[in-house]
């Protein structure tokens, strides 16, 4: 008896190759973006990141990035991200900076080990503005001994697992700094005016150091990268999505659907309803080896295939 999914590739044989390829690319881009943003939701929960605790506080040590400008070999420091009362507070303290120099930094969604350290900036609303308060930026000026601290807070809470890393740059000249005193700490909000950097604007030569928060991937045991399966018109965008894991890892994926249906993960036999235009997340340990279908139960439509290798 052959599993009935056998027909999945034969389906829509009339669809043109170009169309399939475009869909594929699109889906990949969407998936990558979402995955990056939603990265490692389960990571903090599994304790994969050393500096995390139950109430959502994570911290990481600054390390000079590859290709950092000279003079930062002795840089040390720590970044702490604290989630409390629906808000987020980030504290930075650094030593080994150049004297009396202006720096800036951002919360990134990825880990320090990415080719572009930290990956893209963290955004509360993925399609929203590149400015605070949708992103978290801070400014820091070192003192006469090369030390500097900064504190920045946001009224919104950075979702668990999405605070990848803090990346420190030299301040760009067209940036203006507005400060407001809150208590004995200076809260600095970094404001871009007029022309602002796009992602490429931060050349590698600008970047100095990176502190890993929750963005570690690959190297961190038990890391789970949440993948997203997008369903449009009741069909998976880009064809049946392949999700591959090793036994013992955390299987984490999200289904975004424009139709309401029940999502059924075969073998593990998990069922969850997804509303039209909504999304639903699955997260469970990969404890059964083999190949399993994920399908829209009501429509009998396979949307993903989970492979768990020994």
């Amino acid at each position, binding site marked *: *008896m*052959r599993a009935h999914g056998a027909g999945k590739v034969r389906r829509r044989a009339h669809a043109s190759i170009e169309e399939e390829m475009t869909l594929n690319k699109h889906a990949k881009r969407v998936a990558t973006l979402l995955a990056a943003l939603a990265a490692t939701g389960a990571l903090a929960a599994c304790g994969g990141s050393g500096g995390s605790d139950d109430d959502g506080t994570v911290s990481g040590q600054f390390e000079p990035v590859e290709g950092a400008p000279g003079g930062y070999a002795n840089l040390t420091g720590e970044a702490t991200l604290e989630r409390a009362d629906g808000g987020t507070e980030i504290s930075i303290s650094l030593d080994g900076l150049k004297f009396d120099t202006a720096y800036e930094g951002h919360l990134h969604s990825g880990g320090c080990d990415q080719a572009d350290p930290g990956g893209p900036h963290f955004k509360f609303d993925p399609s929203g503005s590149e400015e605070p308060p949708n992103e978290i930026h801070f400014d820091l000026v070192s003192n006469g001994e090369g030390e500097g601290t900064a504190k920045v807070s946001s009224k919104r809470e950075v979702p668990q697992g999405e605070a990848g890393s803090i990346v420190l740059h030299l301040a760009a000249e067209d940036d203006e700094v507005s400060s407001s005193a809150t208590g004995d700490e200076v809260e600095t909000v970094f404001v871009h005016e007029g022309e602002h950097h796009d992602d490429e604007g931060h050349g590698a030569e600008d970047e100095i150091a990176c502190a890993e928060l929750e963005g570690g991937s690959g190297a961190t045991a038990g890391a789970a990268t949440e993948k997203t399966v997008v369903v449009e018109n009741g069909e998976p965008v880009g064809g049946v999505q392949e999700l591959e894991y090793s036994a013992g890892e955390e299987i984490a994926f999200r289904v975004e659907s424009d139709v309401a249906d029940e999502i059924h993960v*075969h073998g593990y036999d998990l069922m969850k309803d997804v509303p039209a235009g909504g999304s639903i997340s699955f997260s469970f340990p990969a404890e059964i080896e*083999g*190949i399993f279908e994920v399908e829209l*139960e009501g429509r009998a439509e396979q949307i993903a295939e989970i492979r768990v290798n020994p």
Partner: protein
Amino acid sequence: MTVLPFAHALVAREDLPVPAWLFAWGASIVLIVSFFALSAGWRRPRFEEDRWRPLGAGVSRALLGWPLQALCGLVGVLLLGVAVYAGLRGTEAPDRNFALTFIFVTVWLGFPLLSVLLGDVFRPFNPWRALGRTAGALFRTVAGQPAARLAYPQRLGRWPAAIGLMAFVWLEIVYGSSGGVVVGVDPHAAGVAALVYSVYTLAMMALFGVEEWCERGEFLSVYFGMFSQLGSFAVKGGRLGVRRPLAAASHWATVPGSTAVVIASIATTSFDGAGEGAFKGGIEWLFERFIDAGLGLTFALRLTDTIFMALCFAGVGLVYLLGVRGMRTIHGAPSLATLRSGFAHALIPIAFAYLVAHYFSQVVFLEQAQFTYLLSDPLGTASTDLFGTASSGIDFKVISATTIWYVQVGALVVGHVVGLVLAHDRALVYWRDYRDATRSQYWMLAVMVAFTCFGLYLLSVANA
């Protein structure tokens, strides 16, 4: 909540492809063993006589006496009835309906395993044989004489069984497609097919006699009987006995059409295994040509799969016949017809190995369903809980993917070795000089290596 067609596959889990390194090890061992077999061949046949000897009379009386035989027949008829009823009246969710798992897993895959281990156990449970014998006995009682029957045309031999076997797998895999998607046969169609087959089988039994038809035409009896030839237990003259394993197989293929049955067995398993791997590209290509030619999706897919299934039969048959042709060139060879049926039994272990390699995990998983919720709730409508197990599920963790791989590759390697042993033994009968016999076996060796490596290849690309 669901009113739309169910999408459950019968199989909720598919096997991972055998990794490349294991494929390489398997193939290497096969080649090394094969060359070793050539040099270390024995000189006198050892498996021509099965040396059957009876077990104690008490054992035979208990197992073969009418009370137990009648009970087995009753159980067989009852289960057939449940399968047909569940198929016709039960849920259309394949994995919740008793009919599909019972017919295509428990019976179809279970009995070959049982037959090798315990002998021809399908015989007492065969529902059509039980019904036929009962009808025959009633007729004798009423009419005072046995029913007249036609002489079975001997030339037909086991061809009806070979065709039945292909038709069964065709129904299972090819027929069950809709809108260009293979969905597997649905329970209702399986129920109807079981009814139609029952009518046909009972009619044939009435025409040619119950035992005659079971021996030649009833494909399940023939198919399971073929595998029972490999095992140690056999009934002779009303007594149960033990015999030398494998030896009985050497005389099985003397009935015409037997070669076709073995080839069909290997071909159908290959086709099932290759559909998701080796042949996927080809099947898609042909399917698209048919769509372009204006055929409907369902018809085009069925046609494509039918053609590929026929190609499998032709391909497996061709490889075997080439080997036979090759042996004919060796000095002192018997006729082509003799060779053709003379070595067919050496393919039975290969057929069995294919079966184990492709379906072992499914049997392990789906029998859990069979003996829990499917037995308690045969219709799958949550209306009954006969044994209190209706809410059980399948534990997929009972065997790991690695275990499955080792069983798959191990089965193929062992099947290969046993096939070589049987072929070498038979060659010693045909060629007086053992050197000629060994030379003839270069050809069979090539055939076996081809089948085994093809089997390994199928495993390594399945679902890849």
